[in-house]
């Protein structure tokens, strides 16, 4: 019973915090309070939210392992889907306002600018993950599902690169993101090598 209540609580927190940037942006836009360049703010904050949520989804497994709080696994899918949602909004805003719905402009941007190449690649990596996030797909894909969904790490790397390459001078924030990402990747790598060592694996099965 406690378990259920805890799950409800953390899921509520997740939904409220993941939706609030979107609600804030839309309501500010409608009230005209996004300042002189609303498109720049919309672009920045949808992208930032997507990246933060993506890193949060990658942090679930390490936190779960360390804390032993297995319930957290229930947050991974919604976090990933919210990240994809914000990344898609980020893309649509960019295509609509910066490329004024012109595919020629868009292709030129993707081909010529590495930060956009990285950003588009991140979105394309996330797309199949979002599509295969249903219970049916998980069952259907079996072991291949977990291999496919390691793509989340690739999306994280591409997303951080996208941000890093965009910034002109003040790299403090993208650097912070990079450090977090490297930490998460490091944890994953450590976990992986532990699992692959047969001796330790045996011990774990006692």
């Amino acid at each position, binding site marked *: 019973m406690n378990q259920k209540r805890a799950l409800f609580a953390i899921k509520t927190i997740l939904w409220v915090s993941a939706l609030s940037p979107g609600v804030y942006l839309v309501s500010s836009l409608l009230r005209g309070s996004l*300042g*002189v*360049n*609303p*498109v*720049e703010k919309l672009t920045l904050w949808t992208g930032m939210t997507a990246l933060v949520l993506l890193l949060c989804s990658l942090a679930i497994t390490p936190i779960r392992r360390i804390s032993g709080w297995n319930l957290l696994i229930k947050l991974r899918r919604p976090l990933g889907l919210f990240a994809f949602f914000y990344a898609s909004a980020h893309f649509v805003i960019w295509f609509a*306002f*910066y*490329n*004024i719905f012109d595919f020629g*402009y868009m292709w*030129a*941007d993707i081909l*010529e*600018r590495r*930060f*956009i190449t990285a950003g588009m690649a991140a979105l394309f990596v996330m797309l199949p993950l979002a599509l295969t996030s249903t219970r049916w797909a998980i069952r259907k894909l079996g072991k291949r599902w977990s291999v496919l969904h390691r793509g989340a790490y690739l999306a994280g790397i591409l997303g951080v690169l996208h941000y890093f*390459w*965009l910034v*002109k*001078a*003040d790299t*403090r924030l993208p650097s912070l993101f990079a450090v977090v990402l490297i930490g998460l990747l490091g944890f994953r790598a450590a976990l992986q090598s532990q699992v692959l060592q047969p001796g330790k694996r045996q011990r774990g099965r006692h």
Partner: protein
Amino acid sequence: MIIRRKPDIASSEITPEHTYLNRRHFVKKAAAAGVLGTALGPRALQGKTTLQELHPRFSSMTSEMDEPLNSYEEITTYNNFYEFGTRKSDPAENSGAFRPRPWKVEIGGMVNKPGQYELDDLLSGITMEDRVYRLRCVEAWSMVIPWYGFPLSALINKVEPQPGAKYIEMKTIVRPEEMTHQRFPILDWPYIEGLRMDEAMHPLTILATGLYGADLPNQNGAPLRLVVPWKYGFKGVKSIQSIRFVEEMPINTWQVQNSHEYGFFANVNPNVSHPRWSQARETRLPGFRKDFDTMMFNGYTDQVQHLYAGMDLARWK
């Protein structure tokens, strides 16, 4: 500060004729309204009243090509001034403690009258005027701004550069206690910019002391900043503390920071892309869409292209 107004603005030789005619119209209107910026201090700006509301003469003012002016609020709440932070709203939010008065400007290098000048002394005898210019940021957004100031050439003539001076180098003041982000190594402080002497002497090149006829707010580079309308906005060094006349091409701050992006010239050029975006189009704020075609030399080609005759502008970018 001494702000004098010319009875008429004889700028026919530097701005297209229709603009000139436009301007005469405004001057006439201003005279009729009896409202001039001179009496207006920053105190009058408190509250939500915009300068346009206080100055009817600006409300219908447009630059050449009938592009509407940006509002005082837009110009003063959205700009880059990394000394106060890297977000566009930072300069307005963080520059309150900056003291633009009293102010000294150091004139040095190859010049006959070097020294530490009180700003008011330096500006005495120089006539102030309104100049409506497009401002094209390297980040592909733009505004139309009614500056208040004077041609840089007037100051240069006053201090008498020596023949050996080929370039002019200007620096922003360093005051980490007041300029919040100079405490961080975001850029290599002080901010340095420069011009070739013929660019500096060009009649379109001005030092601005005001906006909309009133003193420059801190966030826009008080008390003295450079405006070179055919170059990207970052050339417009703010809160100028030092002006030096030199023989060698100065190494400007952004050239040090991102040498692969722009060099010394940074002329607005729709044909030369920034590594991270096309410069062919811009977002004319407060618009939403990046659908305004960027003009060569920001639309001042007729006046300035002779400065770059024979230069490969893709190389000297």
